[in-house]
């Protein structure tokens, strides 16, 4: 984005409005939906929140793939709850995007038509049960690393959605690690399956933090706006530092020959992700891009009769009865009639 576009956006706000917006940011305050804000800020947030929401609901697919094949009823119930959470997280995020004037149906259209993206990580296949556990441990772990700072982001509704999401995803990460631990303390075949999952998901997990700082042109503006609190590389570093000791505890080998702990700083040195692969997956050429979007469109189209039926039912019921007379729906407080008859049960 050039300086010209930004200047035009600034011109759209009065000097007073711009000053109020700048003051909120300078004070580390929160921008709320009805506040005047630069159009570029609004557009950036809608794009980011939509991409985040799409990631949540596309993320249901690689995991949903294993619901019917979970190794026990306990694991199945847990996985089902996790997949349901992802749907919920998508909804919190679509709601947050709508407070900026976006329409959820339009955002879904953009996803279905490939005009908006989702996290590259969900374009990798889940080949084994260990992949599901590795996703909980690594992918949800990376997501939390990204999302905790976002819960302090300058846009109030996005920050509030993130607080809720982070609370819930903590279970996702822990169940994944617990499942990895079970495999790693199991038979040699189970250990090998766990190692194979780490081998395939390690690098794509590091890519979740986005391109390196020197190739991330929008980062500086997002930092200035208080949307982004830490750079991509800083978050990636934190993730590596947090996760490598966990892998050691599991007796697994992180597939990076350059990985080494710097004794002085206590931080890890590590290799460079294959950014060419990253760009290929971003551009639609990952192992599962087409499958994910096609499945998502199909699910949406197959669900259309439900939405139509619900709309028809709602319309008919609205004609027939007032809401307050429906047995299962009540108003917030007792009506006058209830109060009057309370003392006279015989009436």
């Amino acid at each position, binding site marked *: 984005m050039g300086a010209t576009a930004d200047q035009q956006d600034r011109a759209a706000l009065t000097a007073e409005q711009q000053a*109020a917006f700048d003051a909120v940011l300078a004070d580390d305050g929160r921008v709320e939906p*009805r506040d005047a804000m630069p159009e570029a800020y609004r557009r950036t947030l809608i794009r980011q929140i939509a991409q985040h929401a799409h990631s949540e609901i596309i993320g249901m697919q690689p995991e949903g793939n294993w619901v019917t094949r979970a190794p026990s009823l306990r694991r199945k119930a847990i996985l089902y709850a996790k997949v349901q959470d992802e749907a919920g997280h998508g909804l919190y995020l679509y709601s947050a995007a709508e407070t900026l004037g976006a329409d959820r149906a339009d955002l879904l259209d953009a996803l279905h038509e490939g005009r908006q993206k989702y996290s590259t990580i969900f374009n990798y296949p889940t080949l084994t049960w260990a992949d599901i556990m590795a996703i909980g441990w690594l992918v949800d772990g990376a997501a939390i690393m990204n999302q905790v700072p976002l819960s302090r982001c300058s846009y109030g509704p996005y920050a509030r959605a993130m607080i809720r999401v982070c609370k819930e995803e903590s279970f996702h990460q822990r169940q994944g690690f617990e499942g990895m631990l079970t495999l790693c303390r199991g038979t040699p075949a189970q250990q090998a399956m766990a190692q194979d999952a780490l081998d395939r998901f390690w690098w794509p997990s590091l890519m979740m933090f986005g391109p390196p700082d020197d190739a991330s042109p929008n980062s500086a503006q997002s930092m200035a706006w208080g949307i982004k609190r830490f750079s991509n590389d800083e978050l990636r570093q934190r993730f590596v530092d947090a996760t490598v000791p966990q892998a050691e505890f599991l007796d697994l080998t992180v597939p990076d020959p350059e990985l080494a702990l710097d004794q002085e700083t206590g931080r890890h040195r590590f290799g460079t992700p294959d950014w060419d692969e990253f760009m290929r997956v971003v551009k639609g050429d990952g192992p599962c891009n087409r499958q994910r979007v096609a499945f998502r469109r199909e699910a949406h189209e197959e669900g*259309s009769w439900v939405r139509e039926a*619900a*709309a028809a039912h709602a319309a008919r019921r*609205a004609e027939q009865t007032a809401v307050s007379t*429906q047995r299962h729906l009540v108003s917030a407080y007792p009506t006058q009639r209830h109060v009057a008859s309370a003392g006279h049960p015989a009436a």
Partner: protein
Amino acid sequence: MSAPSDREPLWEVFVRSRRGLSHTHAGSLHAPDAHMALRNARDVYTRRQEGVSIWVVRADGITASSPDEKDAFFDPAGDKPYRHPTFYQVPSEVQNL
């Protein structure tokens, strides 16, 4: 493209987390009617027993105070610090005030 039935009205959701506390705004969702809005609100906002009671209100039924949430509307309270107990100087040896 989206069908017209995809454009369901927006509902604001308020959840009472437990008896003794007020309903608090939890978020919003789309639903064709109040009945579905309540069921969806239960699934979206109380998956971990976060509530004992839910209100849903159509978003277009809410009247908001002001566009930018900080205009002259709230000014009248700004110059009346004497409405707060800390406004008053009381000798420290006086108890129970």
